[in-house]
């Protein structure tokens, strides 16, 4: 059987005739998709870990002032919150991102020693802290990073603290966190009598009642009982909190720029290719190729670049995520488990990028006059 020529085979030969240009173009789209997979994957993993932070401890609602990062509520509101009929438990808390060493920063929580949230932690060694004492417990990732064990001392914001325990939490964020008594956290944060939020666990939903509707009702009851506060479902707080929003914004912004560069690379390659092949397109039209055949050929080439670049980008981005997950600075916020949906999205974006970038060159190629194209030198 003599060599068969297929439509895609023809497109491939057209791309491969300019190997260096094709490889450079692939490099561009690979970078764009790789950036998307790594950065957006990073921000989604961050959000996911944040959600687990709430769900693992059984928190249903976070009560805050207006802005999750800058919020400061009076601690004595806890009595009012506990009086709301639907509320089971209330945990006042402070959290902040603090530099522990020049290389390591960590989320630092202030909880009361009797907080229900402590019940969700599994102690690997040592035990809980005590209210009123300069004591801390460390997530196992952070303890390993800082090489600290129960009984040892560490300095936070210039003050000495004794490590009383090392725990494994419900999320990577907790595993990389420090938790200390709320009163100690109020001192080092200069928030005497204040908290950043109250985490609220609701009483079990009545049988047959939809959980979301039950939480929604809980929010209304809390906001009615305690004017001036926002009660948000824990999952929403995870998605909307300032750090997660910032991570999403940076990830999407950076990825979009990288993708735009990749798209422009493909567009440039395809425009150059159509320009160089003007006479060849004229030959194809003379042989009876319809305009849409030419469009299909050029879009196949552009989409091929997108697909191959996308697949390479997915591999590169996933590799970058794995590296981030193994670095001490980022291990606490990045999980190696990535939702396959994320890779599908990346591939669809790569295909869409190829089609977008090839659209104008394809249109131009299809609208060349056959006789003019044949005359083209």
């Amino acid at each position: 059987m003599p060599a068969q020529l297929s439509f895609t085979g023809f497109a491939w030969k057209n791309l491969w005739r300019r190997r260096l240009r094709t490889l450079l173009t692939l490099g561009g789209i690979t970078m764009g998709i790789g950036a998307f997979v790594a950065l957006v994957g990073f921000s989604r993993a961050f959000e996911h870990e944040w959600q687990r932070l709430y769900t693992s401890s059984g928190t249903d609602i976070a009560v805050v002032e207006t802005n999750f990062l800058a919020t400061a509520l009076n601690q004595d509101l806890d009595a009012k919150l506990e009086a709301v009929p639907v509320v089971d438990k209330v945990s006042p808390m402070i959290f902040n991102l603090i530099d522990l060493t020049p290389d390591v920063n960590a989320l630092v929580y202030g909880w009361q020693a009797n907080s229900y949230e402590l019940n969700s932690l599994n102690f690997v060694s040592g035990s809980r802290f005590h209210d009123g004492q300069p004591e801390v417990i460390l997530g196992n990732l952070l303890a390993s990073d800082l090489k600290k064990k129960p009984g040892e001392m560490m300095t936070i914001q210039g003050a000495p603290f004794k490590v009383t325990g090392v725990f494994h939490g419900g999320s990577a964020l907790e595993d990389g966190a420090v938790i200390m008594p709320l009163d100690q956290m109020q001192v080092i944060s200069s928030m005497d009598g204040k908290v950043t939020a109250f985490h609220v666990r609701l009483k079990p939903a009545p049988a047959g009642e939809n959980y979301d509707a039950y939480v929604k009702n809980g929010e209304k009851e809390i906001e009615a009982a305690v004017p001036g506060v926002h009660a948000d479902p824990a999952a929403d707080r995870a998605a909307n909190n300032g750090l997660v929003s910032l991570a999403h914004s940076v990830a999407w912004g950076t990825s979009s720029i990288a993708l735009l560069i990749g798209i422009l690379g493909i567009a440039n390659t395809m425009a150059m290719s159509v320009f160089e092949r003007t006479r060849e397109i004229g030959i194809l039209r003379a042989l009876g190729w319809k305009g849409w055949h030419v469009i299909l050929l050029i879009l196949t080439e552009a989409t091929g670049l997108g697909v191959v670049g996308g697949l390479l980008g997915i591999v590169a981005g996933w590799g970058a995520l794995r590296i981030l997950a193994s670095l001490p600075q980022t291990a606490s916020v990045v999980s190696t488990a990535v939702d396959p949906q994320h890779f599908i999205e990346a591939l669809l974006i790569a295909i869409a990028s190829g089609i977008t970038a090839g659209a104008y060159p394809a249109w131009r190629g299809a609208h060349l006059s056959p006789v003019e194209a044949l005359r083209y030198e």
Partner: protein
Amino acid sequence: MSSPIQKGPILEARGLVKSYDEGRVQALRGVDTVIEAGEYVAISGPSGSGKSTLLHMLGGLDTPSQGEVYFRGSQLGTAVNLDQFRSQQVGFIFQAFHLLPTLRAVENVQVAMLALSQRGNHRAERAAQLLEEMGLKDRMLHYPNQLSAGERQRVAIARALANDPAILLADEPTGNLDTANSAHIMEILRGIQAQQGMTLVIVTHENDIAQSAPRHIRFRDGRVES
């Protein structure tokens, strides 16, 4: 493979005018001609006389500024779709061969068939058969730059025949060839025309080729001279 020859006019040009540069340059100045099915016609004339422009219009590659071209009584561009006409009814042969440099000889022939819905193995078999008929059995997997000028033109003829057209339009097919290759190519074209009853229209500036055709149209200044 060939469809039965239908007698009567296969191509008809009526009052063809082609002007460029907002009418300041006229390549065709009112051309009327009728080409019968199965006819072998040579069109000759000096450079710039409009003979290639006429050939392009007869083949649906270009459209006239005024006038019409009819294929079997139906007007090109209105009753007859130009893309379909070029892919199914016409085979073009060019002076510069116009083979695609990235494709092997056998693939160049198949390119013409990609526009039609044919199975891949059928395309490959048909291309191989045509190249074999052109005496290129051993050159099928060669790229155009590995072929001589005469071989390239034979690949181009095979490509023109790929979709079993009713009409072969050849624009200076021997213009880039030496005497021996010219004679060989003309022998092939005449053979195809005679054996398959195909309509053959050749544009040439070579008198011996023009005069060897049963019908010879002389062109001058955009008009049929005789």
